[in-house]
């Protein structure tokens, strides 16, 4: 089985600091891959390298067998990569509908797509995330949860194959978090996308992820099913510290 995305020996250095050190993993079509690690482990840096926001110092990234290591972010978006941000980054001066419309126009190339077609598309995605009634509100006036949903709609409107979700739970209350998770699952089922899910809250990924990759200090610690990773001694040590056995 050919992996959808293959990351080989990814390295990212900022001057003398190695933020990502020789990380390799594969993502297969249709799965949900969890990506965990303590604060400052380099999770977001990996996503930034994979989406082209930061150029990788070394290593190779392949999508459907095509080398995308040197592609620019917009070319990667056209290949079918989309992302959401840890802290929502809306287009503040655009309305919710036009934000998604921009994404629908500029995402993966669709033949003969008119402005009106893109508008219908954008409406569909906005309705999917439950923001249709807020379509004419400026993005800067939306609540935090609505911004998260707008980001999801914006990412989905590019018709991605693989979507990077960066800490969707951050800043949401339990009820909102629950509906956000439900929304991502529904998106995965309805649009047949693959999800790469970065999360701090282990319980979420235990439930949602098919496989989990754990990293610490930029290097891969463990990879496997959620149960395997959670019971991995290195992962527990990374989260709880070296002396965790004494208190276990």
């Amino acid at each position, binding site marked *: 089985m050919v992996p959808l995305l293959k990351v080989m020996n990814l390295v990212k250095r900022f001057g003398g600091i190695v933020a990502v050190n020789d990380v390799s993993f594969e993502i297969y079509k249709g799965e949900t891959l969890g990506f965990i690690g303590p604060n400052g482990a380099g999770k977001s840096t990996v996503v930034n390298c994979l*989406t*082209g*926001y930061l150029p990788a110092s070394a290593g190779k990234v392949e999508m459907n067998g095509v080398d995308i290591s040197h592609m*620019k*972010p*917009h070319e990667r*978006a*056209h290949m079918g990569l*989309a*992302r959401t*941000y840890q802290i929502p*980054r*809306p*287009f*503040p*001066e*655009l*309305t919710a509908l*036009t*934000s998604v*419309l*921009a*994404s629908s*126009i*500029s*995402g*993966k190339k669709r033949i003969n797509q008119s*402005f009106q077609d*893109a508008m219908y598309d954008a409406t569909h995605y906005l309705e999917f995330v439950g923001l249709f009634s807020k379509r*004419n509100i*400026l993005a800067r006036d939306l609540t935090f949860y609505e911004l998260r949903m707008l980001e999801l709609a*914006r*990412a989905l409107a*590019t018709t991605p194959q693989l979507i990077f979700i960066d800490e969707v739970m951050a800043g949401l209350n339990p009820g909102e978090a629950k509906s956000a998770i439900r929304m991502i699952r529904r998106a995965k089922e309805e649009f047949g996308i693959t999800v790469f899910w970065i999360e701090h809250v282990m319980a979420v990924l235990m439930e949602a992820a098919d496989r989990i990759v754990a990293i610490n200090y930029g290097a891969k610690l463990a990879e496997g099913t959620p149960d395997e990773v959670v019971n991995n001694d290195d992962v527990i040590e990374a989260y709880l510290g070296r002396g965790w056995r004494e208190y276990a």
Partner: protein
Amino acid sequence: MVETELKRDRIVIRLGTKKWEWVLEPRYWRNTLIWAVILFLFPTASYFVSPGLINTMISANIYAAIAMPLALLTIGTGRMNFGPQFYIGVGGYTAALLSISYGWGPLLTLPFAILMCIVAALIFSPLVLMARGLYYVLLTLLLPLVFLEVTFIYPDIFKGDTGLFGIVPLLDTGNAKTNFLYIGYISTAIMFAYLWIINKVLKSRYGLLMAAINDDEDVAHSIGININKIKIIAFVCACTMIGIIGWFYAHYFSSFAGITYLPLTFMLKILLVLMIGGRAQVFGCVVGGYFIAFLEMLMIRFMGPIQPVLFPIILLILLFVLPEGLFGLYRKRRYREYLPTIHVRR
């Protein structure tokens, strides 16, 4: 004692116990056709009443015609350009030098002025990719000043001190008054052409992509917008449109001096047109252009020597009172309409 109060959507006038309200109803004054008819009738009316007004109108049209491409430039590149007058210099000097050297008329010099502006804009277009924020502002601010210095360093070519004279005029009907009238119409036509083109572009899908770039460049890149391509195209087109105004100035006055257009004072006026009109709103640029040209004319006429001090003070007060500009009054009522404005980035 009459008390006036400017509210969000109305002006309230109170006299003793009496109260009048004037609602700023946008339904009528937002109709572009009405304004177009008024503007086209204005030169003919002032031809018989006060021909001097045509001159003010030409200035207003030209201020608006410089501010509108500048709005496109600002929105399309997501950066505030402080040196649009550099391209006025390029277009103007190209037209002036060709006209003086070969005796060419305005129609012959126009394509060359456009070509030179395109070449100059292409040469400096990497600025929008490499520099952002304060660096971009400084670099664009320096360009016209460097060009001004060059006109002084090579006086044989540019005649930096006195300016170039003897350019073939834009029109010559034999009657100065009629010339003014026709040039008034030409300037109005240029202004309307720019308004139509830029409004169409900003309302199209490319305008939407430009607005996305203007709001957040990185996010725009990540959703699949080829930001470099759009920024360069917007930069080159807008700079060329500004350059055409240089050509107009050269043939309108039959003389062209860099010292008139390249210094900061002229740039400041254009930036004020942009901001007073309403933070890079295209229709606002027209309102701002007319407002500033007529305010300047009235102040020169009635204030005399105090005018250079009062003019900027009035404009600064207006910037403070109306941060969204004159067109912002309209936008507040109709925020649902998609109209990109500039987003000041840190």
